[in-house]
């Protein structure tokens, strides 16, 4: 059984009055009062129709939007071993600030999460530190070395959401095949970071005009797409279930689309940075833009947007990858790969995709929660009787990313300094208040 764990918090008792409620899952779209009692959605009524019972706080949410809170199937919480970058407390605080009610952490920690005992320990830490529920993916191979399968069944019993060697590809087709066969015994999605090391070599950015002009070693798109094509075929052959992480290239989208058309049980995710940025950003040699897979070209970006719109790519994941300031403050080639993203994801996507009309708000909301379904977790939903997983967002609020720092321990956000619309005011995760924006909390008090 997959386990999501958070620190115990008092269940919320709140009346959210007059917010514009949108949940594509239930089809609700209009101004409503939402009453949360004991952490559950107790009543849903027309705006102004509900009264707050005794001892229930009223939040005047006129002009604000209330959504089912987001689920991120792909974050790095860096615990254990790299707590100078992030830990479960700071990472889940960042998640709550971004409107997320659940995140799934990757196992490329130090030590690697490849044993049930470690997972049990982490779940205990999450039970005391996690502000929003956290699930953990376990490694596919021992030590992420790609040689031997982990004890997948025991890991599942201990609560692993699924399996991934994220950060590295499963290079051996044979090992992946065995993992897929074993999946029939233990369940759990296999999430794959797709990259052929023989093609990506020492690459540090997308291989193309910009890499040639800068003299930086490139990572070609085929490094990703050939592996997706291969692994989709293997999954199909074994009738297994795989999820492709952080798609970056048009050819990767094509490979996913054709696998889905054949009926393979495959899904894909895309990050905000691959949806919004290209390798042109790397011209500055600013290491914030050093990311794996790399930011690619405008054609790739457009293909990713199209795939997100038509549902070929079913969900958005941030791949929130915190790094210490000193680690990133070095020449581009020496810097580690990755960007943080939990606190900026909704705002940048809303500002750059929804406001200009590239995708609808409903599509964005759907893709920001679909990760739950793909990982076989409960999907947040706004309906009476459901656990409250809600985020209240002021779509009109303008702010600059990073202007007041970050909840995350790290500041390596590739969107830092951008002016955006859409600020999270309140997040309720698993029935408890996980975040309140400071100014909003004060004005409400």
């Amino acid at each position, binding site marked *: 059984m997959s386990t999501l764990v958070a620190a115990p918090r008092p269940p919320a008792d709140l009346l959210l009055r007059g917010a514009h409620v949108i949940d594509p899952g239930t089809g609700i779209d209009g101004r409503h009062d939402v009453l949360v009692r004991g952490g559950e959605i107790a009543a849903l009524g027309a705006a102004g129709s509900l009264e707050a019972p005794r001892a229930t706080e009223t939040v005047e949410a006129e002009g604000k939007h209330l959504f089912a809170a987001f689920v991120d199937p792909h974050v790095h919480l860096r615990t254990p071993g790299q707590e100078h970058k992030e830990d479960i407390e700071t990472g889940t605080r960042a998640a709550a600030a971004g409107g997320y009610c659940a995140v799934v952490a990757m196992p490329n920690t130090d030590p690697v999460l490849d044993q049930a005992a470690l997972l049990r320990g982490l779940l205990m830490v999450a039970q005391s530190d996690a502000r929003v529920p956290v699930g953990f993916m376990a490694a596919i191979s021992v030590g992420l070395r790609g040689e031997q399968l982990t004890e997948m069944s025991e890991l599942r019993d201990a609560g692993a959401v699924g399996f991934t060697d994220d950060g590295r590809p499963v290079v051996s087709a044979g090992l992946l095949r065995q993992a897929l066969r074993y999946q029939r015994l233990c369940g759990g999605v296999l999430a794959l970071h797709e990259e052929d090391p023989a093609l990506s070599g020492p690459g540090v950015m997308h291989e*193309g005009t910009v890499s040639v*002009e800068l*003299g930086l070693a490139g990572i070609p798109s085929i490094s990703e797409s050939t592996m997706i094509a291969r692994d989709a075929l293997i999954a199909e052959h074994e009738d297994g279930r795989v999820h492709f992480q952080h798609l970056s290239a048009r050819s990767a989208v094509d490979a996913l689309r054709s696998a889905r058309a054949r009926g393979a049980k495959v899904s894909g995710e895309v990050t905000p940075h691959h949806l919004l940025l290209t390798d042109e950003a790397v011209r500055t040699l600013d290491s914030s833009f050093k990311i794996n897979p790399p930011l690619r070209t405008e054609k790739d970006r457009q293909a990713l947007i199209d795939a997100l719109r038509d549902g070929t790519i079913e969900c958005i994941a941030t791949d929130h990858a915190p790094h210490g300031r000193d680690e990133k403050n070095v*020449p581009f080639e020496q810097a580690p790969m990755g960007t943080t993203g939990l606190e900026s994801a909704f705002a940048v996507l809303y500002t750059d995709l929804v406001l200009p009309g590239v995708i609808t708000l409903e599509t964005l909301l759907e893709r920001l929660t679909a990760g739950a379904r793909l990982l076989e977790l409960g999907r947040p939903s706004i309906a009476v009787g459901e656990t409250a997983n809600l985020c209240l967002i002021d779509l009109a609020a303008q702010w600059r990313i990073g202007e007041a720092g970050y909840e995350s321990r790290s500041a390596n956000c590739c969107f830092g300094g951008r002016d955006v619309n859409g600020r999270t005011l309140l997040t309720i995760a698993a029935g408890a208040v996980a975040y309140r924006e400071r100014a909003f909390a004060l004005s409400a008090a």
Partner: protein
Amino acid sequence: MRHLLSIEDLDRAAIEQIIDRATSFALVADRPIKKLPSLRGRLVINLFYEASTRTRSSFELAAKRLSADVLNLVATGSSVEKGESLRDTVATLSAYGPDAIVIRSPHAGAPGLLAGWTHAAVVNAGDGKHQHPTQALLDCYTLKNRLGSLEGCNIWIVGDLVHSRVARSCIQAFTRLGASVTVAGPPTLLPDEFAALGASVRHSLEDLREADVIYALRVQRERMEDSFGPSLREYTAHFQINARRLGSRQLLMHPGPVNRGIELTGEVIDSPQALITDQVAAGVVVRMAVLYEVLAGAPTAPGAPDNQSAALEPQTA
């Protein structure tokens, strides 16, 4: 000019100004006393993270000819070997109050980072495979001296383009001065994207006779073994500049150090068309001009680091 980080930052007028100043310094180079007082009392630090003979020595000589004090630091045997970060090394050196830091780094963009961390003027002496602006400037100077102008001149740059910072800087500098540049090499060492830099791309030397100037690049043996080509033998068969390929009216250049018998044969190196030693001599006067430009040419007040406020930000909020 506050820093010299990339040829991209220079327009034609800026390149010509450096060449003209180098020409005036060259007059002094022929005098018995070769020193000028222009940078007396200024401190120039040469910070070299890669082995270099001619670039480092010519920067040192250039600074000394202008009466500056020079401090040479190489990566081996210094705190760099003890794991000090570039940032901390620069902070340490900046405490000496240098007026200019000349940096050679194996990593693209290192000089640009430096410019944000120090008050000193920063001169890029080669960063990764990205840029080597002073090499391109001295090549322009050498050609201008010989030809009078680069306008309409056909320059072929031949060899391992993909790993060459010299090529990137030279393509930009030559084209800014009106030359047309062709790059030639095996497809594994010359991606088609080089066209975006403003050069036309060829994978053979068939039309080499079109060239007025042949600029051969150094071939690194280890790269050949690193799957960029089947063998050196096959490389030389296709791309070596030898007496058969070099026409009598074509000029020959090379940034050095030369692999004799690989990219160039001995007979062409020693031919009258070869400008290779002229390039070395130009290195000193052009680097004098660059140091003069960033130090004496700039307003006298020391500049502030370009992103000092960012540098002082706390790590996390």
